[in-house]
């Protein structure tokens, strides 16, 4: 349908989505590193009766960052476990059609995740809810989860286009 122009556009889109996913993944790595450092310092500090104030809160929020910001790149690497041994035996065209439907549903779900996270974040912001000891505002991190769902949507969109191409619906 789209020819060479479409292929170039698709490659650019793929590069952009992978680039964004990688930037987000760096943030996730900082989250992982943060959990390790905060916990180790807290344990060592506790041995000297100087634990980190609010280490628990900090670790929980860093875990949110580590998880949500890694979502997109994990899909770029096709690491989100799926069971495809039945569909992989089908003809390419059928595989493409099934894949396109699957990725469309995934995009839909991710959009709902992002939307509901934004709604939850808004309500937490309005009610002014914060973590117990460090008083970190929850809404900041919930917005982060919603934001992190968007690059995953983009990666799924690329997978959707690839599936359509496999089904020979687009070229």
């Amino acid at each position, binding site marked *: 349908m789209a020819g060479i122009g479409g292929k170039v556009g698709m490659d650019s889109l793929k590069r952009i989505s992978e680039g964004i996913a990688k930037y987000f993944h760096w943030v996730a*790595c900082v989250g*992982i590193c943060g959990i390790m450092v905060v*916990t180790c310092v807290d344990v060592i500090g506790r041995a000297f009766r100087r634990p980190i104030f609010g280490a628990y809160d900090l670790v929980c929020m860093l875990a949110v960052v580590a*998880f949500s910001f*890694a979502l997109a790149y994990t899909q770029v690497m096709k690491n989100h*476990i799926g069971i*495809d041994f039945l569909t*992989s035996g089908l003809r390419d065209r059928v595989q493409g059609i099934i894949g396109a439907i699957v990725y469309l549903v995934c995009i839909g779900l991710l959009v709902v995740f992002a939307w509901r996270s934004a709604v939850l974040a808004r309500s937490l912001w309005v009610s002014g809810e914060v973590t117990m000891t460090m008083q970190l505002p929850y809404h900041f991190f919930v917005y982060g*989860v919603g934001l992190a769902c968007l690059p995953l949507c983009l990666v799924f969109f690329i997978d959707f286009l690839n599936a359509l191409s496999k089904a020979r619906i687009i070229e």
Partner: protein
Amino acid sequence: MSPVQIGIIGIVGLIVVLFSGMPVALVMALAGFVGFSFLVSLDAALSLLGKDIFGEASKYSLTVLPMFILMGQFAFFSGTGNRSFESAYKFLGRVRGGLALATTLACAVFAAVCGSTNAGAAAMGAITIPEMRRYKYHPSLATGCVAAGGTLSILIPPSTVFIVYGILTQVSIGKLFLAGIVPGILLTLLFLATVFVICRLHPDYGPIGEKFSLREKMVSLLGVIDVVILFLLVMGGLFIGFFTPTEAGAVGAGGALVLALIKRQITWKGIVQSFWDTARLSCMIMFILVGAAIFGHFISVSRVPFVLSTWISGTGMPPAIIIGMIIVFYFIGGCFISTLALIMVTIPIFYPLIQAINFDPILFGVIIVLVSEMGVITPPVGVNVYIIKGVTQDIPLEVIFRGIVPFLIAVIIATIIVIIFPQIALFLPGLLH
């Protein structure tokens, strides 16, 4: 339609969509969301999605997962697997099948700092298979012992499967880790016995290797001393109650990094790659846990687990038969579905049943791990076999699967022994208060 009927339709729908190739996490979230909408309301289901993704990701108990994965990654990139193998080989090289015995032993040592079967198989496969082939080991023995040995990583603590099981069932992760130690040693011994028997039956499968002096043997032990230190630090801290599991994981990861830096065994690239891979692997598991939480809410509202456990208890079936049936289910399911995904999908349904028949949840966890070990080495979805295939491109899959069979029998024997003598698994956690 009754809630139970909707619950059953939801489970059937989940199984159907599961095989479409859609990520397991999203299949579970979708089934949970649709089912919850039917049983409660669309508004409630929508708010469940927002709450569960944040609620699960911010659970302190979940942070144990990335920490132990990170510890394994640091061990991987600092060459712990290599040093374990070298040391084991210096002690066992002179015996027939010595390299295969050394490989099995090295897998067990590496398992003490790594909780992922994939990482165990990948780390040890890349090191040991080329060595075994150089010494003219039979390909089926060379690949079979590594694929099977890699599974020790999920039985000998730390273990990702124990962590996931503990998170899903609220069973103490510390107790689960301790419960895995003796069965892990038992299975290692059975794997060693398997190699020994294979080499007795087919002497050409494992030729005799080099001889090393006592001094060389002792020096090689220095290479694995950090594994011993880390294992004692992590397990000791958990055992005496100084650490929570997350703290144990973080101290293990931090300790592994510091030791590797002091001994100059890890590069900057290795450190970055460790964080990079940990974020990816943790996210993969945590996303399924988010899906499992949404699905779990739907399943509880449907009352399917309650009805199932009441019905099965009412039949008067002996608990041993029920456990046997569950094991067979996991064994068959594990052949087709990734074991971690299978556990996360089925535990919300089976666990209430386990509680209803008063079966020890820690023992059940150990059995689940043993059955998971079978799943990762059986066709068609034996992940470890494909990892080994990736390392040794020229060895056909059939040869690897054939090599696995004797080790699979060893895992089955270990499972039977643990079921007959549960104290093997329950003795150590019994000491923890």
